[in-house]
């Protein structure tokens, strides 16, 4: 009684439609993971949904404002603390500028290429998707604000991730702990180079293919090595939290814990190395390809 009788129903039957939609979505998934054709479609949808995304952020923004209002009395304390910190920092900074000049001189003497300087954009983490599978964050700065694919995200403690998709007013960044992501790194203590790959688990990285007798200890700090020109060198990445040397396997099992936190409502910096964007993309792609081939070799 409630629905129109089958006689008057137009269009294909629901089973046919189901099969059509299943095929379409499977095709979309394959195209999205292996090719880049759907980038514009995603971008358009993201622009259309931007007001909703903004609206969803509103409660957080309001609670932030309210918090700011109520914590005004703590400001004096905070101010004093920052002043002290500023004095310490400026002392260090003076040394740094002297060191930078000295370094430049030495590099000129050695005829080495100058290190890349990077500029930074301040951004805020908008949201963390509900999906447990992809470790990404959404930032409130997009291509209109100068964000580009492949740029590096850092906070005050260390590296967070890398921009993977840019939309006009927002961008998506993969965390360094993402399973498909790796960072060229160096052990701070002895300059040993390696590649830190994400594990897909919260705050956990892995150093792959390091020999069993490698000189890495628990507590070692890992910084970016700057090789590949995507990540500027010397950014803190993680601390080695576990080293397991198993004689029966060829490689040591090394687990690291990232230093930077990815909690909500945090300001982050988008660093852009002074490289043409094409190079940036290329080097990012080379990493991904390298990692894929490495994986395939291992299997």
């Amino acid at each position: 009684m409630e629905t129109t009788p089958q006689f008057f129903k137009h269009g294909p039957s629901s089973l046919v439609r189901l099969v059509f939609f299943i095929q379409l979505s499977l095709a979309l998934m394959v195209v999205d993971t292996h090719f880049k054709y759907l980038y514009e479609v995603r971008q358009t949808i993201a622009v259309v949904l931007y007001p909703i995304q903004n609206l969803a952020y509103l409660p957080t923004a309001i609670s932030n404002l309210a918090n700011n209002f109520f914590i005004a009395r703590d400001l004096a304390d905070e101010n004093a603390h920052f002043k002290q910190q500023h004095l310490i920092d400026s002392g260090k900074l003076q040394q740094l500028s002297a060191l930078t000049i000295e370094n430049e001189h030495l590099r000129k003497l050695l005829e080495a290429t100058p290190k890349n300087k990077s500029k930074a954009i301040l951004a805020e983490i908008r949201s963390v998707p509900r999906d447990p599978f992809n470790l990404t964050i959404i930032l409130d700065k997009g291509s209109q604000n100068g964000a580009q694919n492949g740029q590096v995200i850092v906070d005050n403690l260390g590296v967070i991730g890398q921009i993977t998709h840019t939309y006009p007013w927002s961008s998506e960044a993969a965390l360094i702990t993402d399973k498909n992501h790796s960072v060229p790194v160096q052990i701070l203590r002895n300059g040993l180079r390696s590649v830190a790959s994400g594990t897909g688990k919260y705050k956990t990285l892995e150093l792959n293919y390091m020999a069993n007798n490698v000189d890495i200890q628990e507590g070692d700090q890992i910084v970016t090595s700057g090789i590949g020109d995507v990540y500027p060198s010397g950014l803190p990445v993680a601390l080695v939290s576990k080293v397991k040397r198993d004689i029966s396997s060829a490689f040591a099992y090394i687990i690291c814990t990232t230093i930077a936190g990815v909690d909500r409502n945090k300001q982050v910096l988008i660093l852009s190395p002074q490289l043409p964007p094409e190079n940036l993309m290329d080097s990012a792609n080379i990493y991904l390809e390298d990692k894929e081939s490495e994986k395939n070799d291992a299997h």
Partner: protein
Amino acid sequence: MTPTNYSKEEITLPAKGWFIILSLLVGLLLNLLPVNESLLILRPDFVALVLLFWGVYQPQRVGMSVAFVMGLLMDVVNSSMFGQHALAYSVMIFIVLLLRRRIHVFGLLKQAPQIGLLLLFAQFIILLTELLKRSDFPGWHYFLASFTGMLLWPLISLLLKMSHSSKHDPNAL
């Protein structure tokens, strides 16, 4: 106010198109709200819940195509594979369209476990596509979202029913 008091006529009154779209967008908004880690695990998929509601009560308006489009929107805002949620939602709506007469018979509280199973099925499809992409199994707590979705079903469907039937009461009389 027991849910079974709603007469068939009232339930099958056509909801306005804009109201359906609005409810779906509100569902999307609720899915996007930034929350902390522990709530993130518990948060049900509001878009799926709203789609299921309209699938049960307005199958002429909300079918697989609407579910597919909402799935694509979800994929973009969730930065997941394009087509992943679209697949899960359209299969889920297909099943609810098959079972909707049966679901109709029960009261809201008895509908909840069946809806929970459908949500679980949608999550399972998403998990399957991720496992095919060689992602790791995220742990059993991943399915908690369906459980909270099941608990929220009576509340959400009551809200949607009241808001769309109250709007139509003057017209009906």
